[in-house]
């Protein structure tokens, strides 16, 4: 299990998957990210992040064959592993700590 730090984008992807429920595939993940961040998101960047996260052991994926999904294409579903929680929490802690006290200055 890699103990590497979580990049900002990776952090966002994990959260997006969480928000979507148990499992998610790339299309809703991209849509969720765009909806929440308000910016357009490159699908390829998401795929890279997904692969990296899986290599780090923070995600697990399964390939759903076309016969199962009913689509003409296979679909890969992603879900978080338990190991993902710790780096998520740490990342959040770091953000909150850095933000602490700065809200009044940066509030709009």
């Amino acid at each position, binding site marked *: 299990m890699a103990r590497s730090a979580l990049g900002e984008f990776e952090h966002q992807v994990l959260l997006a998957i969480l928000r979507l429920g148990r499992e998610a595939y790339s299309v809703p993940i*991209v849509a969720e990210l765009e909806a929440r961040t308000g910016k357009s998101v*490159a699908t*390829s960047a998401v795929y890279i992040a997904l692969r990296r996260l899986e290599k780090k052991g923070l995600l*697990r994926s399964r390939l759903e064959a076309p016969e199962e999904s009913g*689509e003409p294409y*296979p679909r890969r579903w992603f879900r978080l592993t338990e190991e993902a929680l710790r780096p998520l929490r740490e990342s959040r802690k770091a953000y909150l700590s850095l933000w602490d006290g700065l809200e009044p200055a940066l509030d709009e």
Partner: protein
Amino acid sequence: MTYGTEDREHPPALARRLVRWAVGAGAADEVEGALLEAFRGRAGRGPRWRARAWYWRQAVGFVLRARSLRVAGEAPGGADEWRPRGSGPLTWLGEVLSDARWAVRAMRKRPTFTVVAVATLALGIGANSAIFTLVDAQFLRALPYGNPSGLVLLWETDRGSPDVTTVAPGNYFAWKEQASSFTDVAAYNVDVATLSGDGDAERVAASVVTPDFFSVLGVEPELGTTFSGEAARQAGGDLVVLSHSLWVRRLGADPAIIGKEIRIDGRPHTVVGILPADFRQPERDLSWQRVELWRPLLLDAEHDDFHSRYLRTVARLRPGVTPVRAQAEMTAMAARMAEAHPEENAGRSVLVKSLDGYLLGDARPVLVLLLIAGAAVFLIVCANVANLTLARGQERRGEFAVRAALGARQGRLLRQIVVEGVMLALVGAAVGTVGVMLGRGGLESLQERYFSSLLTLTVDARVVAFSVLVALVGGILFALPLARSARRVELRSALVEGGGRAGTGSGFGGTGSLLVVGQVALATTLVVVGTLLTRSFDRLVSVPPGFEAEGRVTFDLSAPRSRYPDRADYVGYFRDIEREIGSVPGVQSVAMTSDLPFTTENDWTTFGVEGRPYDERTAPRADFHVTLPGYFGVMGIPVLQGRLPAEVWDPSADTVAVVNRHMAGMIAPGGDALGTVLTLHNEGDVMRLRVVAVVGDVLDDGFSARTEPIFYVPYATWPQRSMSVVVRVRGKPADAMRSLRLAVARVDPDIPAAGLGTLNDLLHSTVARPRAASLLGGLFALVAVLVAVTGIYGVLSYTVQGRIREMGIRAALGASRGRLVGMVLTDSGRSVALGLTAGLAGAFVAASALSGLLFGVRPWDPVSYLGSALVLGAVAALAAWLPARRAVRADPREALRGG
């Protein structure tokens, strides 16, 4: 979503190909599929050119990141090595271990909860382990005999009287020779013997046994052999088998003891064998269990004696024969014997009783009580911990939802909860078992004083296994409510509710109040039963025994036949004793009796009244004691009529007797008993006793006994060689004991003062079992109340916390503190009231089942029920009021902000 129609939008073909190249063959299909879906979504929502532009942007992005894509996707084996994890038994084990690690982490993060839960569990599981240890020793482990379920005792019975009597040798031989239900029948008797020689003179419990006694019981000696009939006859009966403890204590565990001689009752006996350490004489009475030496009982001369009834008999059932069948045969045989020997055996029959039923019967009610109480306490503990777990689980709803989103299957989540519960329970069990091991000494003394100590108590692997089993059951039990409520968790709702605070979701509220009801009910039952037992015990010991026990010391003396062969010899001995004791400073008065009250097995006889017709078969019975006339004064027994005979050591022509009030009423109803002459018939001889005094009734058999007719015969008329001495002393009885022991030794150093103790102690020892029941009942009730109360307090703390916001709003709207508190109390009050009602009903059922242990108190004694309900209600109200008050005190603005 289906494909196929021509007018569906298609993404730009070139862009598609670029993406496929960038991603690589393995993932090309799935990526293309995802992009297609997104493209079609956009094409459906807006202008087509926008969708195509978007698609191109994505394609460019893929191309620009092609290298990173390949690198990122590389795993051993290439770009499409996105393999799903396997599953199998090893995975399962790994998951359980990981669950356990989670559980430990969770426990550490909430130390207060963990400590409280573990302490509660340790109490509940530890108490049950202690009970199991006792029950194991009493019921589950075998008696120290070979195949004990095949052993029965044979008693004689008389004319429908409920009591059994000992057996006449003639009957014993008849049964032995004729009964087909048994492989063998042995006879024995118990008495005391004096050891002397090396070391102080010592009186020990002893037994005389027919040579087949040990083989019937299926006991092999540890050293040497037991005696055969032949060897015993040759040695003139002076052989002895010793107990293991005697061998160790008095003979230094001498390995060469076989063949050596020791002095018993002044005569040398050859030691032929040593019995195993766990052997006990098959007696119910604790003191008779500890027989330390066995000598041969040779009954050859008494083969046809059907009159002297003094033997006990034990028999081994033939394989395949049940006690019921044996009883049928023996009843028929007894009828035949009654016909064959009408004077001695008329109206008499035989009772066949299984040995384990006889030995353990007395202790059963108390053990049943313990089991019930233990189970109840355990359930309360589980309910308590379930409450705590459930309440805490509310805080963890968010966590559960996240974990469910993490892909934890329902089963996995439930397993996690159960593993947490079991781990908590195991830790509690470990603490509890350690407690039991440490308290083993206390358990042993409890067993010794209040139960049959036929078996040694061990805290061993069985107890540990039992604790683990209880922990597993308990862990699953109290994890269930939480597991149930966790199933209904959804991430969105959990996030919306802000799962950081305890909520009052209906799942928790419903199950939580059910648990409160259950706890209150169980605690109520235990408190009522405990109160009943305590009141019963109080009633028992406040029955006046008919004599005064304060400041009296007693002991037993027995003049052995070998040195005091004739009547004149032992009368002289007791005269010297009376004189010597009387001269001890601090002694106020001395008296003797053949049998102290509150000891069992009184002497009794049938009697007649002169001038009235006498029929042996229907003559009334009375107990009798042989006493020195000073006995009544020393014991504080009031003389109601007449005058006591003068203190006389020499037999006179005028034989007199003193009767108690009950007997006086029997022989002279409504009239004057003085002057009546009692007649005692014995094979043609008649002894006449003129009644000269009537004394107060004395409880001969214990606090719970009825008064019986008793008459007292002066020692001069009927001298005995064994007497109990009662000494009234000034000052503290304990101080006098040493001087008394020395005084007895001065008269004859080889006769020890046996059983030296105070009369008070004797009284108290007879109520050991009811006292045990009362103590244990009270203890369990106390524990139950404590646990239930902490449970109620805990649950309500959490519930109230969850309602802080609501209360803050109400307070802001003008509700007074009192109203708020009242609101909380009403809700919890309902649960408590329901629990009280159920508990009282349960208590009635339990009390009826245990009515055998109650004395002078009815199972539905209103004082006990009412009092318990009031106390529990008040205590529960307090437990509810405290957290309510605390929450209400909180600043309403803080409450509104979310606490």
